[in-house]
């Protein structure tokens, strides 16, 4: 019998609130399936289980806050002879709930799971729903999109305590309009169906609390970083003219959804360079550097309501540009919709901050412990630049590296930035 425990979703997390169970006793689960939703100070996070087997017992009620490591459920490791599936809550057959399979499917077909109406148990999205979403001409637009809500609908939802995530928008392109909110019943007024509706505060309260909690979390983590990590900093200005021209040519013939933004190219280069300089890719734990086996690139994403989350793009160094671009879109939209998975929050091995998009020349970052390096890209700007003895106007970017001096010295950091610059000289090989 294995225990499914409250996971640690990052160095800063000490406790979490179980929001929702996505499985019931008797359900068969596989390693990697999303089985629960946990609320941290940053967001509601979907948590995967780490063993395969049958759910024997749920030990913690939704709405309960428990310390990291607390057993949440018991999972029997052997498969039952006859699986005892829970009775489906709707007339539809029980289907895998938000399983990685469904997500992969949705991602491959450019379906935003936030806009799909789930018909599985407890309103979960099934593969069939994803297929229907692809066929249905109406709501889901091509390309991953964040959940769209009109400001009036948002205000209305706040005032009436309606959970926007429970509403399917009937406006153009699936946007949630005020009318859709008016047609919905407040979550509080409805008797909670078993397990599907966690007893948690309304979205608005939650959002306000979360904003404060996120500030506190960032404060604690960054203070710890500055207290414990002896940072050293290196910067390098790179001529991007040729790389951007190459990208521009490549995008020229492509429809808008297939175009790749320069940020994707820069992220790819950062990931590849981390593979080539593995001394910067990993963790400082117990007074020693622990190299990571893969490059899980943390991408700092600012949230619209304020705050910052840096989830990981797993094995970013192995993705081709198109794949990376798709994953980036997906990651950003899910981060802002609060649909991140546990593995994405806990696994970055090196992080990139791309504040350059906000128009600043350079960013000298603060490392996320226990990582040992943070790469920062400034804005791409035109500058007078000397090339082979001639002065020209080139498009350049200033890239910085903040690294943990306990783990590496400046020479290693310099090698990283040189590698990065070299990779960007040959964008077609990225």
């Amino acid at each position, binding site marked *: 019998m294995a225990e499914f425990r409250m996971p640690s979703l990052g160095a800063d997390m000490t406790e979490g609130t179980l929001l929702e169970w996505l499985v019931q006793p008797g359900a068969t689960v596989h390693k990697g399936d999303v089985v629960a939703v946990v609320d941290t100070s940053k967001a509601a996070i979907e948590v995967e289980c780490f063993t395969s087997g049958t759910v024997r017992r749920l030990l913690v009620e939704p709405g309960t806050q428990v310390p990291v490591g607390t057993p949440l459920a018991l999972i029997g490791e052997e498969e039952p002879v006859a699986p005892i599936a829970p009775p489906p809550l709707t007339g539809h057959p029980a289907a895998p709930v938000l399983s990685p399979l469904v997500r992969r499917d949705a991602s491959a077909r450019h379906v935003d799971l936030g806009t799909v109406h789930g018909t599985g148990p407890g309103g979960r999205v099934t593969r069939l729903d994803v297929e229907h979403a692809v066929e249905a001409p109406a709501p889901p637009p091509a390309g991953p999109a964040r959940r769209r809500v009109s400001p009036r609908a948002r205000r209305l939802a706040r005032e009436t305590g309606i959970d926007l995530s429970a509403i399917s928008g009937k406006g153009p392109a699936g946007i949630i309009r005020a009318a859709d909110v008016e047609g919905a019943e407040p979550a509080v007024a409805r008797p909670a169906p078993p397990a599907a509706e966690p007893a948690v505060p309304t979205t608005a309260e939650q959002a306000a609390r979360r904003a404060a909690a996120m500030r506190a979390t960032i404060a604690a983590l960054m203070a710890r970083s500055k207290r414990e990590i002896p940072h050293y900093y290196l910067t390098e200005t790179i001529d991007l003219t040729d790389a951007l021209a190459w990208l521009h040519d490549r995008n020229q013939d492509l429809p808008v959804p297939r175009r790749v933004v320069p*940020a994707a190219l820069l992220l790819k280069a950062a990931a590849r360079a981390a593979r080539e300089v593995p001394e910067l890719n990993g963790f400082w734990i117990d007074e020693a550097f622990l190299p990571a086996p893969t490059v899980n690139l943390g991408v700092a994403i600012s949230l619209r309501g304020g705050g910052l989350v840096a989830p990981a793009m797993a094995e970013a160094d192995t993705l081709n540009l198109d794949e990376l671009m798709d994953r980036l879109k997906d990651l950003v939209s899910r981060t802002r919709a609060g649909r991140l998975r546990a593995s994405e929050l806990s696994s970055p091995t090196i992080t990139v901050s791309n504040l350059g998009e906000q128009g600043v020349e350079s960013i000298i970052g603060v490392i996320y412990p226990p990582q040992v390096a943070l790469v920062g890209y400034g804005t791409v700007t035109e500058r007078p630049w000397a090339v082979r003895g001639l002065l020209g106007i080139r498009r350049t970017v200033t890239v910085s590296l903040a690294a943990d001096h306990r783990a590496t010295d400046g020479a290693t950091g310099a090698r990283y930035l040189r590698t990065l610059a070299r990779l960007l000289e040959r964008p077609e090989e990225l």
Partner: protein
Amino acid sequence: METMTMIRTTLREVAPEADLDHLEPGADLREALELDSLDFLRFVELLSERSGRRIDEDDYPRLATMSGAAMFLDAAAHGTS
């Protein structure tokens, strides 16, 4: 004006939290609404879809403001781009 309505609707979808009521027609959209490059790409994608007009990367600078975008799309509609 129909084009302007389309632009506003589209912006509302791309940046639902943004306050468009106080946005000057000549204000830089990326700056005023804090759009990142992915948001902007989505804006272009939706505009292109809705206007039926091909929008190349070279046209992006003309979409920097609401009034610029309206002019660009109207000109395209009259075949004078």
